[in-house]
């Protein structure tokens, strides 16, 4: 038995001895390194080692959770005692409990989530990668005059999960990232933008110079930005901003929002919620992808879930508790970030179309191409949507001038219904990804 499994087994045995009728534990151990460089000089280098145990105990149908980063015997005993004591004061809940032991994953597939290629580069080599990325951005144009810096990070983690019915499995992951944030300036105006690459394998990171040049181009195209007049026009979301719309859909489709009746997708299962061209899939089994995991936070095997199929809401996103409350089966989306259990997606993607982004822009006489969104103006209960935006104005099918200090507003259900163009440019750069999306009309508020 590995040290992790032994530690978890001890903790769960103590919980049972203290009167818990069932318990589960999730142990995360990670080591990370990050280095930032600004204007060619090292800025901050961080090393860390962390570990965290998240424990859930049941006393009949009542439950409580606890977590600790102190894995000493004394501390673990205290955590177990506190959690079992807490479980005695919470109310009975007929839907509480672990998943059936028979449903837990048996064989953990190798999803290629860990980089085994050696040798490990030195900290100097890693710093150099950030330096090269930033240097490429600074060299791209004389108007790139400053920088918020470039950052490299890597992280290796091991996850172990065990239940009081004897289940114990684990898996390891690695992740790497490189981001650059240059500042462009002209006539007293400053604009910052960012570009990045994340991957499970070091060698899958995008070339440092290419990240730097993309970041520079993004900052440069914002120079000279202005407000536009308030109007209702076609709006095109670039892939990164379109991905944020998927996150809002996933939030509304998640079990806790639904049983609390706090979702605009309530009672919409099986009905059309988007244009027929829209298919949204959450696929946690893609080899080597950032959001992949062999099993969820309750030991249930990861799947490929069609969330929206040709416009129709095909599935919610559920852990076992929210599934029982809704009279449905878990979709294996339990996530275990803190001590409790929540719902989280894996690799969430909108299926690409066949039109190039250039042709989508070309189809608009006068409209707005969105490249950045800020603020929190999304209401998950009603779908009402109003966020700050920056991007480019489209005139006669071409990107004409940069735009800032405006908002885009509508309602998410109407926006997904009004999707009239889907780009062919889906790239899984992060855990959530979308191609360029064209929405027939939204309100852009400015002057």
């Amino acid at each position, binding site marked *: 038995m590995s040290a992790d499994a032994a530690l978890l087994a001890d903790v769960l045995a103590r919980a049972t001895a203290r009167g818990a009728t069932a318990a589960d534990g999730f142990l995360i151990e990670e080591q990370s390194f990050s280095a930032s460089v600004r204007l060619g000089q090292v*800025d901050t280098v961080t*090393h860390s080692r962390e570990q965290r145990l998240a424990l859930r105990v049941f006393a009949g149908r009542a439950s409580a959770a606890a977590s600790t980063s102190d894995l000493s015997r004394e501390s673990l005993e205290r955590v177990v005692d506190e959690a079992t004591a807490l479980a005695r004061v919470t109310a009975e809940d007929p839907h509480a409990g672990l998943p059936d032991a028979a449903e837990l994953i048996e064989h953990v597939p190798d999803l290629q989530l860990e980089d085994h290629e050696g040798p490990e580069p030195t900290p100097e080599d890693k710093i150099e990668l950030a330096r090269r990325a930033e240097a490429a951005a600074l060299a791209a144009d004389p108007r790139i005059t400053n920088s918020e810096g470039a950052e490299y990070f890597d992280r290796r983690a091991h996850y172990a999960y065990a239940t009081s019915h004897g289940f114990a499995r684990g898996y390891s992951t690695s992740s790497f990232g490189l981001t650059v944030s240059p500042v462009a300036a002209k006539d007293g105006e400053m604009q910052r933008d960012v570009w990045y690459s994340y991957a499970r394998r070091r060698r899958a990171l995008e070339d440092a110079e290419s990240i730097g040049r993309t970041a520079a181009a993004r900052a440069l195209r914002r120079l000279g930005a202005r407000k536009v007049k308030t109007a209702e026009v076609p709006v095109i979301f670039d892939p990164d901003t379109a991905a944020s719309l998927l996150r809002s859909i996933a939030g509304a489709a998640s079990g806790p929002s639904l049983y609390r009746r706090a979702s605009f997708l309530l009672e919409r299962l099986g009905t059309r919620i988007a244009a027929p061209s829209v298919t949204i899939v959450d696929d946690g089994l893609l080899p080597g992808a950032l959001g992949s995991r062999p099993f969820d936070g309750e030991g249930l095997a990861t799947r490929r879930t069609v969330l929206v199929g040709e416009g129709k809401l095909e599935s919610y996103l559920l852990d076992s508790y929210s599934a029982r409350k809704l009279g449905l089966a878990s979709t294996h989306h339990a996530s275990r970030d803190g001590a409790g259990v929540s719902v989280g997606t894996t690799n969430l993607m909108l299926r690409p179309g066949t039109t190039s982004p250039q042709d989508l822009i070309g189809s608009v006489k006068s409209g707005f191409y969105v490249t950045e969104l800020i603020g929190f103006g999304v209401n998950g209960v009603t779908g009402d949507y109003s966020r700050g935006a920056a991007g480019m104005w489209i005139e006669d099918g071409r990107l004409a001038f940069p735009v800032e200090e405006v*908002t885009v*507003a509508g309602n998410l259900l109407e926006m997904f219904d009004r999707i009239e163009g889907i780009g062919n440019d889906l790239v899984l750069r992060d855990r959530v990804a979308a191609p360029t999306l064209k929405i027939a009309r939204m309100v852009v*508020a*400015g002057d």
Partner: protein
Amino acid sequence: MTENIARMPPERFFSERFDVTPSLMERLLGSNLAGRVDDADIYLEYRVNEELVLEENVVKKASRHVSQGAGVRAQSGARTGYAHTDDLALKNLEEAARQARAIADRSGGSGVVAVAGRGRPHDLYTLAEPPIVTELARKLDLLRRIDAACRAADPRVRQVIVSLTSEEVVMLIATASGWTVGDVRPLTRLNITAIAEDGGRREIGGFGGGGRVPFDFYLEADRWKRFATEAARQATLKLSAIDAPAGTMTVVLGPGWPGILLHEAIGHGLEGDFNRKGVSAFAGRLGQKVASELVTVVDDGTIANRRGSLNVDDEGTPTGRNVLIENGILRGYMQDRLNARLMGQAPTGNGRRESYAHPPMPRMTNTFMLAGQDDPREILKAVSRGLYAVNFGGGQVDITSGKFVFSASEAYLIEDGEITKPVKGATLIGNGPDALTRVSRVGYDLALDEGVGTCGKDGQSVPVGVGLPTIRLDGMTVGGTAV
């Protein structure tokens, strides 16, 4: 069941529990770091957090989290080496110090010139009974009473979610200049979310408060009942709200929480790091006019029992009352030690971090505008058409371009000087260096928020406060859907 960690001074707590004494911390700093760096420190933290959640009429979720760790930092010029560990064993602390120092070795540091700790720490939140130790039965009983009061406030309230968090952080920091200081920080927050339904329409509303206060804070003058009623009102009000207007108009902000405008529009832009790097829209503008002369803004970490207050910041510097803008003129930035040293300024007690796992950076504490002369009713009466916004969700700013947004959760149309219909989904957007030049009236009704703010920067969250009197802004852009 609950250990009373607050009863012990931080020095004794860490030495009894983990065998880490101030002299050991000094030795780690001395043998590993002295003479090679400009500044260095070791930060120890122990945190206990308890959360109770009521939904569907019963308390179903209870959790308790413990985290502990040490962060070791070495600085040389503008470079920072930071290492943290959650295992306080000596060998891990030595390894962290070695990793932090590696950065300084690469640069050939100039020896310790760290700013010595100045002044005495404040005593802003010593509590007879910190919220983390209050017995569970009393907390559970309060959650049930809040649930009942919120539902009783309006029959259209269908769901109530109440959460109560109680936290205690013990920290101890030793710096290379020989200054060791600790702090014990209680914090509590009560949050009430109501979901109302009427016909086919559903809406969500919320209210809450807290601070570095005892549990009894919620019982004083039936504060809990006011919060519960207010959450119900926020949700039901929106059931009849109309779509927000879109376009440029006069905006009146109510007192208290709308001070989030200051936090987003100018606060972040006045943090030292962005200004040292020259990437803030306010960089190089000290002494210049950046706001209407009616506007004076301070950041004050020394107000007793407030959510954003600290006896010392997370670098050991006592907090202060720092004037950011005085009668419209930009007077000062908020600084941590690194940026103060590099800019030739004094630290202002604004060096904060989320936890031992994060290096400190300049952050706000309680940021607010001082009261003016105007009667709030007169301010409203003088507006022929505009938006009156009294509660907000979150906000965000692009520090470099200065553009900010914040979302109103409670707002009304102003028509001919009267508050008329409630509107939903209004987002305000503006330009930081320009927004406060549009302030044309300032009320005498300064209020601080109820104690719910959390600020995020570079992935680090810290509790903050804001405050504002009623103000009028001319020509703000409102991002609604009604053209």
